[in-house]
């Protein structure tokens, strides 16, 4: 995946986070892709919505019980890194 595609993917994830949070997080707060989403108000319900969105958008099923470390969901950068790795494994 080249840089251009990575940026496009981050923007899609950014949009999914915004939708998942139901507007509780402002779009400008999501401008930094390394910000910890929990500190700007993504709660457990928001994460549930986000997981649904990621699965439907990228076809990657995320089973939190299978992942000991959940830090891959803490920032948009981490989420994209995880998605790329999962898609690479599936390919």
């Amino acid at each position: 995946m080249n840089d251009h595609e990575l940026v496009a993917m981050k923007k899609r994830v950014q949009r999914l986070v915004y939708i998942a949070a139901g507007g509780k997080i402002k779009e400008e707060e999501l401008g930094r892709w390394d910000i910890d989403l929990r500190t700007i108000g993504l709660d457990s319900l928001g994460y549930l919505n986000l997981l649904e969105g990621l699965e439907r958008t990228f076809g990657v099923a995320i089973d939190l019980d299978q992942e000991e470390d959940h830090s891959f969901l803490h920032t948009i950068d981490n989420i994209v890194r995880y998605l790329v790795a999962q898609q690479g494994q599936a390919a």
Partner: protein
Amino acid sequence: MIWNAMSDCLERHRWRRAVTGGAEVLTYEDLGGRIHTAAGLLRAHLPEGAHVGFCLGNRTEYVVLYFAALAAGCLPLLLDANFNTGEIEAIRSDCGLDALVIERTKVDALGLPGKGDPVPFDGDVAILPLSRLVEPPFRPRPETEVCRFTSGTTGRPKCLEFSGHAVVSAASNWVLGTGMTGEDRTLCLAALSNGLAFNTSLLSTFLAGGELCFLKGSPLTRPVARRIAESGITRLVAFPTLYRNFVAPGGPDRAMMAGLKHAISAGAPLWPDVREEFRAAYGIDISDYYGIAETGPCTFERQAGHHTGLGEPLPGVEIRIAPPHPDSPEDPEGAGEVLVRTSSMASGYLNHPGMFEARVDADGFYHSGDRGRIVDGRLHLVGRTQDHINVAGRKIDPTEIVAVVTALDGVADAVAFPDEDLNREALVHLVVVAADRESTNELTKAAVVEACRSRLAPYKVPGRISFVDEIPRTGIGKPRIAVLREQLNTSA
């Protein structure tokens, strides 16, 4: 009494399937064996009549240890698995806790002073013995067999006491009123500490000879649908958000849901359009359950195709509507406070003596704080008479949040009130006034969120935070929420 009822179920249905969690399936006979072993473990490690707190998500071990505690003569106290250390400590000092049933990995994070090492149980569950530093000021009533909790103020959850009679009544009335049978397989996605799951799924499933199933992992629509298809689930007990996600574009196929007969929603009001779309997509009517922590289950819609209201009273439930309050002139005709009398009522709050009794009138009806009316025998809610904020079925006292925030350096004033996000989910909206308006930049949203996260249970953390120069108030200092909302909408 609860254990007697359960013992009878274990004997009567011994060859049937009782509990399925992940790949593990227990028959009633298996379950009985596991309960007896666990009861022996509790007797060996805990004093007689021990107060055992359950701070655990849904799983087979929860069911085993809950009934084991009853069999061993202990008092189970069903805590919200999201309670933080402060809230558990408050329960411990108010009600007394001799042990905590908890995931092993959470023991260290909670930092509670244990009495020896955690006792390993099956799976990733441990029993953490706790020492009683002082005798708690409150003693449960002799007839109390289970305690559950509702949100309290200042971080002290209110402990509701239930007699065995009340718990068995709630379960048997649910079985009778909803037509539950031994052929039912219930997938319960609501926490067992919550009244919805406790009353609709736990003992009731076993009284009917049915099977109780849990989902491992997050309650996402595809795993849920897969589970429904693979396990032949007939009843789904869930919350509005899950149903909304089902009907969002790209939701699971109708064929996967073919075996489902009852979909039950609770915790928050179900959006009418979601109910309609779910019926259109899957051919199933969602029953919008209405229950109150203090009274147990109240209503259920039995008639397929009836799409408004919250259904008719269950067996053992009487509902009255109080005359309209003069302060609620906006209520539709016939609406007033919902008063409920059930055979499954709590006995009282263990740590708030007199508070429950003050809300029960001379005829034994509990004043719910909800406003509603009866139309064609069905209950319709129109609002609440109290100031609590209902977020996903948990009632939050806004004064607790305001107390935390106004104690922060740099905060001059604050108010919290119910609001909705763009997904129409209820949330707590916190509005803050900085003490020094020149330094507003230093008082960031992240700082306020962090302060709330460190002092409050996660569900109490405000979902939206706004900063204003001044909170409009009445002459007696009461915040004028409607005016504030208008100001915020204008400036958005």
